[in-house]
Every structure is written in C-alpha cells, then in structure tokens.
C-alpha cells in the first residue's frame, strides 16, 4: 500500500472566516488604502516590504522568508462573479466549485475518486481535524479524517488476540450490513469499514516519525505536524486537508489577526522545513485559501465581509512571486462601491492544482474552462 515518495501531493489549508487579504499583503504606500482603513490598518513600519508597493504583514515573518526563498506564490484578487458574502454559502461554493447552484460533491472528493477510482486506499484523501469539510465529501468516495492520530481505530484497547479479532470481525459485519439500508446508514456503515482499513495503515505512523523541527503549540501547527507525520510514512496520500479558524474579524481585528498570521505562517514554514529535513519537499504543494476577502472600509474595530481576497501556494517546487494583479484600491473601481474586484477565478486556480499537481482532468470538476496560472518550476 505504500507509494513512491515522489508522487505529487497537495496540502490544502482552509483559513476559515474570510481572511483580510489587504492586511496580509499590505499595499503600504497606497493612499487609498489609508483613506479606507482608518483604524484597522497596518502601517508602513509594520510591514516587511516585498517591493515598493506591497509588504507582508510583519506578524507573518515566516511568509516573508518563504517569499524571499522563492517558495511562495501569492495569487492576488482571487474570487468569482457576484461573490457571496455569506460565510456558509461562500464556503460551500469554494468547496464544491459551484457558484450557481448548491453542489453536492466536493472538488477534492471528486479528485480522490479520479486518483483512486476503485477506492483501494482509504488514505488517498486525508483530513486532519474533527469535522470532514464538504470539499472532501462525495457519496461513496472513502476519505479518512483524523482527529486524534494516536487514538485512531476501533477496538484497539482489547489486548487478548482472540477477542480482539472477534470484536473487529463483528464490527466489520455490523457496519458492512448497514450498507444498502438507506443513505445515512450507508454512509455510516462505509465510514466504519474505512476506519478499519485506515487504522491498519496509520498504526505505525506515530512511531515512524522523528524530526528536529519543533512546531509551535497551536492548532494549525499541530495539524500540519500530523500531515507531515502521515505524509512521511509514505501511505499513498495525495490530498491532505486541514482548517485554521478565526478569520472572521468583524471586531478587534488588530488584536486577533496578528496571532492568526503568526500561527499560520509559522506552521506552514515549519512544515516545509520538516519536509526538507526528510528530503521530501520536492513534490509537496501547499494551497491556502479563504472564502472571501473583507470590505475596503473598516468598521472602526474590524472589517465586514467583502470580496476579492487572496490565496497562496507554497512549496519548493513553486515559482515564487506575485500572480495576477493587486485589485485596484481606487474607490472608482470598487465593486458595489465598497469591495475589491476579483481578477482571477478560483476555479482557474483549482484547475491549476488539479492538472499541474494531481494530474487530474479539471474540466469535469470545475465545470468548464478557466484560465490556469503557471506557478510551478519547469
């Protein structure tokens, strides 16, 4: 079941809540920015400039390092037409790549189906953290979700071999029988069987892993460390997914956003360093996205839901730099008179990742042709 470590792998980091792109990649010399952001503003002396116009929020210093090393591609002005300002509809749209109707199949779940059509490896797609995102969910496509790597599996406290084998057989029988008795029972039954297959594979992961990289103690760092541990065990996982919450900064943004920047940038750079230490960094791509950007004008304490956000691609294989153009900050250009315009359709970025990282045909998943970018080294 193990695979060549050379297989290309995608790691998706969901920044849940709508990250404030303008305060992440700050247009620190632009007067329109300071006109719109009276209070929730990052000043010139709080950025790490990458050119004369844009600087990375100083709390995300590891991103500056990755950018300087050419390992970070910044996708400016990503979005879709008539961007939805609801978190939930917005996130659903990103999860299913279907802005015009309520889709039922996650874009990455569909990719898992293409990568492993006979469902031979339940670890082809792995979510880290409790709660499977809809991006990974497609009926009948097994994906593994790991909330607690050390405790993963069932009946694993029984020590007596004969009893343990009998217990596992009975569990398998009960969950197998549920399939075919209704949609929800089908799903739970299949999930039970997937646990059994996944547990066998994951049992040794924790023991196999050693690293000198010391991840910070926060949820996203813990999650990406788990990704590293599983990836480095060579179990054939092609898609990892994890979430980092807290980006819905309607209030007290200047108090809360810096820690998010510190945690996510530290976790991603530690993760890449960890892979590098193990000689496994050539084929891993990290994609970080959020459901929307935030409003041009702040509300005095935070920022309300907006459009025109940004996304990021990281990795040793990445051709670092800026992609697309920073959305115009001139009020005359604002969408609906208050938002940044998007220039790059997120489905084009999905297509880029599907075809250039996973070698999966994008068109049936993103439902059409969308312009791709070329963010990888030849």
């Amino acid at each position, binding site marked *: 079941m193990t695979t060549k470590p050379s297989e290309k792998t995608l790691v998706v980091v969901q920044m*849940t*809540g709508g990250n404030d792109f303008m305060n992440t990649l700050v247009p620190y010399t632009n007067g329109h920015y300071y006109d719109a952001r009276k209070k929730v503003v990052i000043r010139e002396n709080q950025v790490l400039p990458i050119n004369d116009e844009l600087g990375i929020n100083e709390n995300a210093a590891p991103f500056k390092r990755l950018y300087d090393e050419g390992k970070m591609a910044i996708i400016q002005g990503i979005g879709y037409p008539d961007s939805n300002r*609801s*978190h*939930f*509809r917005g996130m*659903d749209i990103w999860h299913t790549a279907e802005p015009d109707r*309520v889709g039922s199949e996650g874009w990455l779940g569909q990719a898992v189906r293409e990568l492993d059509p006979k469902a031979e490896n339940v670890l082809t797609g792995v*979510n880290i*953290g*409790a*709660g*499977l995102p809809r991006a990974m969910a497609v009926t009948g496509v097994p994906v*593994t*979700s*790991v*909330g*607690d790597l050390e*405790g*993963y*599996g*069932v*009946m*694993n*406290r*029984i*020590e*007596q071999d*004969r*009893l343990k084998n*009998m217990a596992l057989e*009975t*569990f398998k*029988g*009960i*969950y197998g*029988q*549920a399939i075919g*008795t209704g949609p*929800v029972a089908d*799903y*739970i039954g299949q*999930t039970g069987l997937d*646990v059994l297959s*996944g547990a066998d594979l994951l049992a040794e992961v924790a023991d196999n892993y050693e690293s000198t990289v010391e991840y910070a*103690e*926060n*949820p996203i760092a813990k999650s990406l460390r788990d990704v590293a541990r599983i990836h480095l065990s060579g179990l054939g996982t092609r898609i990892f997914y994890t979430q980092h*919450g807290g980006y*819905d900064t*309607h*209030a*007290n943004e200047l108090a809360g956003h810096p820690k998010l920047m510190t945690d996510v940038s530290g976790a991603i750079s530690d993760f890449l360093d960890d892979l590098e230490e193990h000689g496994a960094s050539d084929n891993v791509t990290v994609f970080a996205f959020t459901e929307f950007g935030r409003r041009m004008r702040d*509300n*005095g*304490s*935070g920022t*309300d*839901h907006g459009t025109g956000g940004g996304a990021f691609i990281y990795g040793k294989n990445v051709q670092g730099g800026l992609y697309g153009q920073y959305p115009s900050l001139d009020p005359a250009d604002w969408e*609906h008179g208050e938002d940044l315009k998007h220039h790059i359709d997120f489905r084009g970025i999905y297509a880029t990742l599907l075809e250039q990282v996973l070698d999966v045909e994008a068109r049936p998943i993103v439902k059409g042709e969308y312009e791709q970018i070329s963010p990888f080294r030849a």
Partner: protein
Amino acid sequence: MIFWLDNNENHKDEINENYGRELLELFSMGVGNYTEDDIKAASRAFTGWTFRQPLSLYPNGHYPAEFEFLEDDHDYDSKTFLGETGDFDGEDIIDIIVKQPATARFVSRHLYNFFVEDELQVPSWKTEPAKNEDAIAQLSKVFLETGGDMRAVLKEMFNSDWFKAATSFKKVKSPTELIAGVLKQTGEFSYPVPGIQNFAITSLNGSLVEGPLAIMGQRLMNPPTVEGWHTGHEWIDSGTLSERVGFVERQFEDLSKPGVKDMVDRVGSLDDDPSQLVDRCLDLLGSINVSEQTYDSLVAYAKELSSIENDDVEGSVGVHNLLQMTASTVDYQFE
C-alpha cells in the same frame, strides 16, 4: 448574542454588519430572502444595542452582563427594510422579520430538524424540499397566525400525529448527546464531582490534549463558525467515528463505575441464552432498535464471548464486552 455577533461594536457612525447579517441568515429567514441593503438597514437599526458588564464584588466572581441601549449611539434616520420604510429600531426589525413567510418556514424547518428528524443541510433548503412538507406548512401557518409565538408553534408540533409517530431513530446523536447519554449510563457522575470537565477539554482553552467531545467534533461553547456545527450525518467521519467507538469502549470497560457494574449484573451471565443477553443489552442501553443482521451479529458475538470466557485465564472477558459492542453499532449512533 450581542457579544458573539459584535453588536457592541455596531455604532451609529461605524456600522458593523455581523449581527444584522446573521440575524437574517442564520436565525430567522435564511440566505436568499433579503438583499445586502436589507442587511445594512437592519444593522443600522440595531446600533446602540449593547451590554455592560459590571465588575463582580468578589475576586473570582461571575460578571453577569446586562443589556444596555445607548441612545447617543443609535441611528435615528429613516431606513428601508424588506420594503418598509421608517425610523426603525431593532424591535421594529424583528416585528417585520416575523411577518415574513420565509421566516415562518425557516424556523419551522429548524424546529423539525431539532426535534423530529435530520433534515438536509441548511444551504440546500432554498432548493430542496423538506422531509415532511405538510408538517412544515402546518407549523409555518401557526407561526404566521400568532406573529411568531414560539409557545404556540411548539405546542402545535408536540401535539401533532407526526411528532408522536417519530419514535424510530431518525437523528444522528451529536457528540454531546452521545457522551451525556453514556455518562448517565455509567453512573460515574450522578452528582457534581470534579473530573467531568475533562470530557470537554479542548486545545482552544489552552490544553495540549483534547477531550472526547472535541475529537468527536464538538467544542462546546466554541463552534467552528457562527453557523454552528454541521449536524446529522456530518457529525460522522472516520475520525469522529473512531472516537465515538473508542469512547464507549473506554467507558464500559471499567467495572468499578456503578452504572457499568449495575448493567453487567442486570444483563446476566455469558452462560445465559445469547439472544436474551443481547435483548437485555439493547434494552439497557436505551431501547435501541437494531437491524436483523446486526442483531444476529451481536448474538454470534455473545456466543463467542461465552466460549472465550471459558478459556480465559485472566478473567478480563465478560458481559461488558457485549455492552461495548452494542454501543459501537451503527444504530447506537442514532437517537
């Protein structure tokens, strides 16, 4: 709610839309039934609604918050909301909201989902029919006739035939429901003693380990987003199912817990008729209905346990293993 949705930061001159938006989207009408301008008007109407939280007299005392309306911070200008125009404040907005058929339907569907049967996930409600359209129509009618009187709507539901008929297991237990149910059965916490908080401990509270509730996907008082949790079958994935099964395994293996000991005594000896043993386990764990095949699997397991027990020198095999397996079934995930 005011704090959670930042209305204390919603000021006359600096509108914060969080409360206005989520009031409409999550708590009354559902997305698609109002415009962005309606959100702005509602938000303006709630300016000045805030709270104060006087310091406690005691060093570690509770600081109860009190609602406060700040006149100086309220936007008294005219607003247009859902087609009506006037100098609205928050209560006027709520009066308008409860007149809307969309509100009646949305709230009724939530009640049905909570009390009767898992519905589809909320984003698809706009396009997908309800599980029981007649029930939703019945509740919506009462909601509109009474101006959103929840007592009347609930009374209608609890007295309806479809509510009384809904005895089969049509809802997936939330992690809280599963854990609370098991802890009630193990009898370990029949009165307040330290330790129960460990079940709900999370990394978000500074702990480096997470308790079973968090691993099953529910950090109490700390949902992943303002939407709350995705419920129904979305409670279950391979990681959360691992923890559900692992949790009952850990809880029911400890015979020193009074409820476990009591259940083991009441189930009887592994030498008894295996079908009777299974019947008693199902009954003790909450009158669970299982499929015929699951029942047969449990009976076969009971037989095997009896045989293993006879050869077991350490004496660790017993009736509690059957309780563990019964609480690990697909059916046990439902309520």
